[in-house]
């Protein structure tokens, strides 16, 4: 089901969600959610508090299994039973403040879980070279030493390290959960540049954000959740701030040119 007015090519989207439903007891967190995340683009997932954004990304990162519905990876149905499954596919999620160990340095954080070994010991030179290269590829230049503990980094730099870690693990899809929350203006700009660089390099980004300025600055596509339903999906150009706000708060908008889903999915 290709979306009207969308620039999706013939190849299947990297990730496709079909009829995803998830309840916690009596609470319906997600109801029949459909979403296509095309490869090498930045898709922004917007929604008010409690709209189901977190549940959606946790399902995609293998933390929670959906009650019903399916996840297609490059057109093939997949079952994500654990974060490991998601990681094997190439899905990396960067959680707001859970991504890094403050007491470890940048290199240790980037390689945590898959350090290269030589003669049974950590191969520090190889790690340092790869870490430097990855950071340079991402145009992260503000970090003084890759051997400084993450605790001494600014919020933006921490996000950079988390993203570099994802790139290092050959991620195809990077899910970023509110990466600019709690960041200042300059730091936010740095993270947004990082997201653009990432997508220029062919990595697909699913950006979860409250901040509509950020969303419009980097997103190719926008999807809006409202009370667990996907109410609108489309290219960023078919939205403006007011439209997104309408969708986020009321679930509908009268001025929208894209694909509005509230009506046909209401039951």
């Amino acid at each position, binding site marked *: 089901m290709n979306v009207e007015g969308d620039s999706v090519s013939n190849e299947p989207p990297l990730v496709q969600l079909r009829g995803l439903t998830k309840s916690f007891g009596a609470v319906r967190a997600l109801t029949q959610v459909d979403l296509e995340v095309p490869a090498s683009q930045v898709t922004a997932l917007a929604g008010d508090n409690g709209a189901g954004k977190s549940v959606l990304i946790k399902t995609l990162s293998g*933390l929670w299994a959906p009650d019903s519905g399916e996840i297609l990876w490059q057109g093939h149905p997949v079952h994500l039973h*654990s*974060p*490991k499954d998601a*990681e094997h596919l190439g899905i990396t*999620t960067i*959680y707001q403040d*859970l*991504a*890094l*160990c*403050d*007491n*470890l340095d940048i290199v*240790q954080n980037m390689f*945590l*879980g*898959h*350090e290269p*070994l030589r003669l*049974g*010991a*950590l191969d520090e030179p190889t790690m340092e070279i790869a870490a430097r290269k990855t950071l340079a590829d991402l145009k992260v230049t503000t970090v*003084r*030493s890759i051997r*400084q*503990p993450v*605790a*001494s*980094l*600014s919020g933006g730099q921490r996000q950079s390290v988390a993203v570099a*870690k994802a790139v290092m693990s050959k991620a195809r899809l990077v899910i970023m959960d509110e990466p600019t929350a709690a960041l*200042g*203006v*300059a*730091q936010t700009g740095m993270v947004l540049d990082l997201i653009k660089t990432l997508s220029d390099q062919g990595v697909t980004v699913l950006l979860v954000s409250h901040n509509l300025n950020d969303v419009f600055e980097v997103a190719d596509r926008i999807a809006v959740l409202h009370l667990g339903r996907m109410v609108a999906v489309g290219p960023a150009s078919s939205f403006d701030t007011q439209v997104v706000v309408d969708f986020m708060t009321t679930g509908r908008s009268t001025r929208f040119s894209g694909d509005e889903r509230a009506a046909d999915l209401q039951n």
Partner: protein
Amino acid sequence: MASSVIMNETRRAKKFHLPDEIGIFVVLLLVAAVFCILSSSFRTYNNMLSLLLNGAVIAFLALGQTLVLLTGGIDLSTGSNIAMTGVLCAYLMNAGVPWIFASLLAVGAGGLIGLFNGLVIQYGGLPPFIVTFATMGVASSIPLIMTGSSSIMVADQGFSWIGQGTVFSVPVPVVLLIVFAVIVALILSWTRFGVQVYAVGGNRTAARLAGVSLAKVTVSVYVMSGLFAGVAGLIDTSRLMVGFPTAGTGNELFFSIAAAVVGGVSLFGGTGSVLGAMIGAVMIATVSNGLNVVNVNSYWQSLVIGLIILGAVGLDTFRRHRMGAPLPGILRRRVRSGDRQSAHADVV
């Protein structure tokens, strides 16, 4: 605001290049110097030797304790593990088991206590403090039950080598300690496991999401702590050639935690080093020995060491506060990570 952030960063970065061990080492030298001045018997070779010998038992416990503390846990059972392994070893030798095998079995029994601690903490999701508090009671009762609270004399003279022998005129316990401390230090800084120990102590969730096996790390550190307590039990028993069922229930646990903490190992997990803990152990042994030598009533020892712990933890808290994590935040994170630990036990 941005500029103040940058300024903070520079200051923090500078702080980090000063190894914490230097500070405690200087304090150790000062304390030793003061005792040297105060007492002529402190500065004798024999006294230094007995200081190091006494320190070896504490240091072995501190070595295991350091591993556990680095992951954000605590092991309260190590002190009573000394009595259990020591008495078990004496018991086995009296039953005719050659001293080498008896020693290995006793150390293995210490490891079993650690294994139990680790498994219950990891899979039962119980707080380390409670679990090891309970095994502390269990491990202190076993030797009393086994012996009816009487001591067991060791007849096998070969066993005395562990506590009384020397290698190139260095006491065996000190040699053993150096060997194991170097091994643990190398493991911590050169292996994947070492990084994982620090990662688990720094941020459990991040470590788990990065694919670190919390179970492997947690269980391993408690097993190692148990094994080292077993070695400490052998040393204790071998020095007097008697297995005391009440050994290790005195100040040993207290002193070993003090040694680690004074040496810069954080009670909050994730920070510290073996070198620091070992300097801390020598520091505690020096204070304890020095107070004896200058004829301070031994009742004062725990008071002084208690104050030292308070000072060291205060300093650690202050340092963390400066690093941007206010104390309430740390505590909250600890509580939360405790919750996560149990919540994830069934997820992982």
